[in-house]
């Protein structure tokens, strides 16, 4: 067997390392650096150390908005975890049942919204839920619930939940497909053996299939976490960057957008924006880190 020489290794790794460094690592490092600077009216930057972070976390104006966005983001993530992934699991288990009629059609239909642009999704739902032109009030009327209708996207108490549900509706296809693929990979012999031993379908699911797909569930969780804490597009396309009413649907993503690019009369500040981006990065890094330490390590041990 030939040994791989150092230069061969370098040549083989170079393209990936270069592209990754150029388009991912360097911008990230530069963002981290930019967060320590401030710019005056003429655009001249000067080093201020941790001042931007102090402003965001402790200045009453900034911190109230930051923690509001953070808290909303947590809610947004929890709704996804509570609904999107269990529903994905349920659907995937249903589709993996043998002899289910029309499974393919349903699978495609449920996956379809995932392929659509978020802007279109936002627009469709805005129309459906519009108190002026929307169909939802009429549809609720058919089952005698018209009085329950409210301008859900326009109320402080309901805007964020409504947007979360729209997002769950759109993305439920992804956990479904991932879990479905994992369920298909569960070895047939194991299931048959369990069946021959007289285990019920429920028991097979809870005690064999589910533990075997834990790594996939973990993956889905972490994907949801990262996607949710980077979420921006749906809120922006439905509520604009001010994430109204009264910032009720403000997420870290929209907060970052307003800070970095500015909005309407608010002039954007790239340096403050970089600080917010760094905080978002730290939140995600913390989440992913905690996941690896607390969950992933145990999962690999189980899988062995």
């Amino acid at each position, binding site marked *: 067997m030939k040994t791989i020489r150092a230069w061969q290794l370098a040549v083989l790794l170079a393209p990936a390392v270069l592209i990754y460094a150029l388009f991912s690592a360097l911008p990230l490092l530069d963002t981290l650096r930019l967060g320590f600077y401030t710019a005056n*009216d*003429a*655009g001249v930057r000067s080093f201020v150390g941790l001042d931007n972070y102090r402003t965001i976390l402790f200045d009453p*104006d900034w911190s109230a908005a930051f923690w509001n966005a953070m808290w909303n983001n947590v809610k947004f993530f929890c709704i996804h975890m509570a609904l999107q992934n269990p529903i994905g699991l349920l659907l995937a288990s249903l589709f993996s049942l043998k002899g289910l009629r029309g499974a393919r059609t349903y699978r495609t239909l449920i996956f379809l919204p995932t392929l659509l642009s978020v802007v279109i999704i936002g627009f469709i739902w*805005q129309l459906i*839920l*519009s*108190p*002026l*032109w929307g169909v939802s009030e009429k549809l609720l009327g058919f089952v005698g619930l018209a009085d329950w209708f*409210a*301008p*859900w*996207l*326009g*109320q*402080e108490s309901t805007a964020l939940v409504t947007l979360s549900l729209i997002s769950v509706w759109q993305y439920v296809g992804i956990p479904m497909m991932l879990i479905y693929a994992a369920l298909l990979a569960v070895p047939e012999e194991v299931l048959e053996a369990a069946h021959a031993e007289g285990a019920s379908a429920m028991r097979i699911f809870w005690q064999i299939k589910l533990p075997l797909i834990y790594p996939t569930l973990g993956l889905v969780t972490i994907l949801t976490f990262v996607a949710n804490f980077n979420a921006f597009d749906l809120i922006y396309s439905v*509520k*604009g*960057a*001010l994430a*109204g*009413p*009264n*910032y009720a649907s403000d997420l870290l993503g929209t907060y970052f957008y307003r800070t970095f*690019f*500015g*909005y*309407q*009369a*608010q*002039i*954007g500040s790239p340096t403050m924006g970089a600080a917010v981006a760094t905080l978002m990065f730290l939140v995600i890094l913390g989440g992913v880190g905690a996941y690896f330490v607390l969950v992933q390590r145990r999962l690999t041990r189980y899988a062995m």
Partner: protein
Amino acid sequence: MQTEQKPGRFSRIPSFPSLPRRRLLAACALAFGLTGLAAAHVQAGTLTIESWRVDDLPLWQEVLIPAFQRSNPGITVKFSPTAPTEYDSSLAARLAGGTAGDLVACRPFDVSLSLYNKGHLEKLDGKPGMEFFAPAAKAAWQTDDGKDTFCMPMASVIHGFFYNTKIFKELNLEPPKTEAEFFKLLDTVKANGKYAPLVMGTAEQWESHQVLFTSIGPNYWKGEEGRKALIAGKARFTDPQFVAAWDYEARLGKYLPKGASAQTYSDSQNMFALGKGAVYPAGSWDIAYFNGKMDFAAFPPPVPKNGDACYISDHNDIGMGINKKSKNKDDAYKFLAWLGSQEFADLYTNKVTGFFSLSNHLISVKDPIAKQMMGWRKNCASTIRVNSQILNRGTPSMENEMWNVNAQVLNGKMSPQDAAAKIQSGFAKWYKPQQ
């Protein structure tokens, strides 16, 4: 033994490498070169205009640009607008990045001033065309000391209310003159139940402030007097004349359509155009949208009591500046000179209905509603939007806060006193004369 290879699924497709590789490379290089040339060619005689007036695109393409080209053949002009809510921030980014257009539509006061201070805009004093504008018209695009002018004034907008003449006739209503009459009218429409009394939504928030609050407010804070007192630090938003404006707004909020909190600006436009509502808080730019769709007329914001002096929000709204990094400044100046001409003033006022030229050329306004609104200038004192000069400079941004606060007051989620307190505390945080 060698097995015969079955024709694969893709075998019929002529294989790509059959083209000699060298020739392919040459073709690619040529293609690149040509695009480069084409790009260079486009740059030579082309002017790109940045603007937030997305609605005006057809007008620029069909009327204004051809008119300019008749007197300036050989210069191509491209109007490339960005959505209003995005405009300021994306323009700032593009100017900083050196990718912005040659001509830049200027918001009034601080937003453009900050662009000038950062060195993105040319100084325009004494340039051809500027002589046609009175100092008051230029004030929105000058440095605080009035020494440098950086945008050519284009147009102002006036705020008031539109009403559906058919509904008014049906319910036997008259345009109101005072606050009391206005509420009586709204009550009548509400009691009738067929129409929404006041067509407006708060989903996008900006209309709450820019269209309604700054339109009804000046009657309470006496226009320029109140605005200047804020700047001088002699008045506070928590003073009765300002709280009264929010009070009035809160009362108006009760006449909004059901579900107004999720109703967007275009929803409101649609709703009023379809004849589903009686009164519509308007900016004069709305005239063009409703023209030909329905019968309507306008009335100025009703005054608090009979005999009170009236004030209108007559806002210097749009100007035009030149990007300092433009590669085509000669043509840009030619264009600007044309913007100052009688021809442009006439075309803009009469074709972009509801935008009133700020130049001192004599123009006859043809649109009846536009003429009516412009006529208010004779009886009522003009003022600009309360926070657009100086008050928007600090953090928190008063403009964004105003959107939020006014939308909440209209929705009944915030009391007028709290609204005033919130704006005042944000203001006092950075503005010395208010501390």
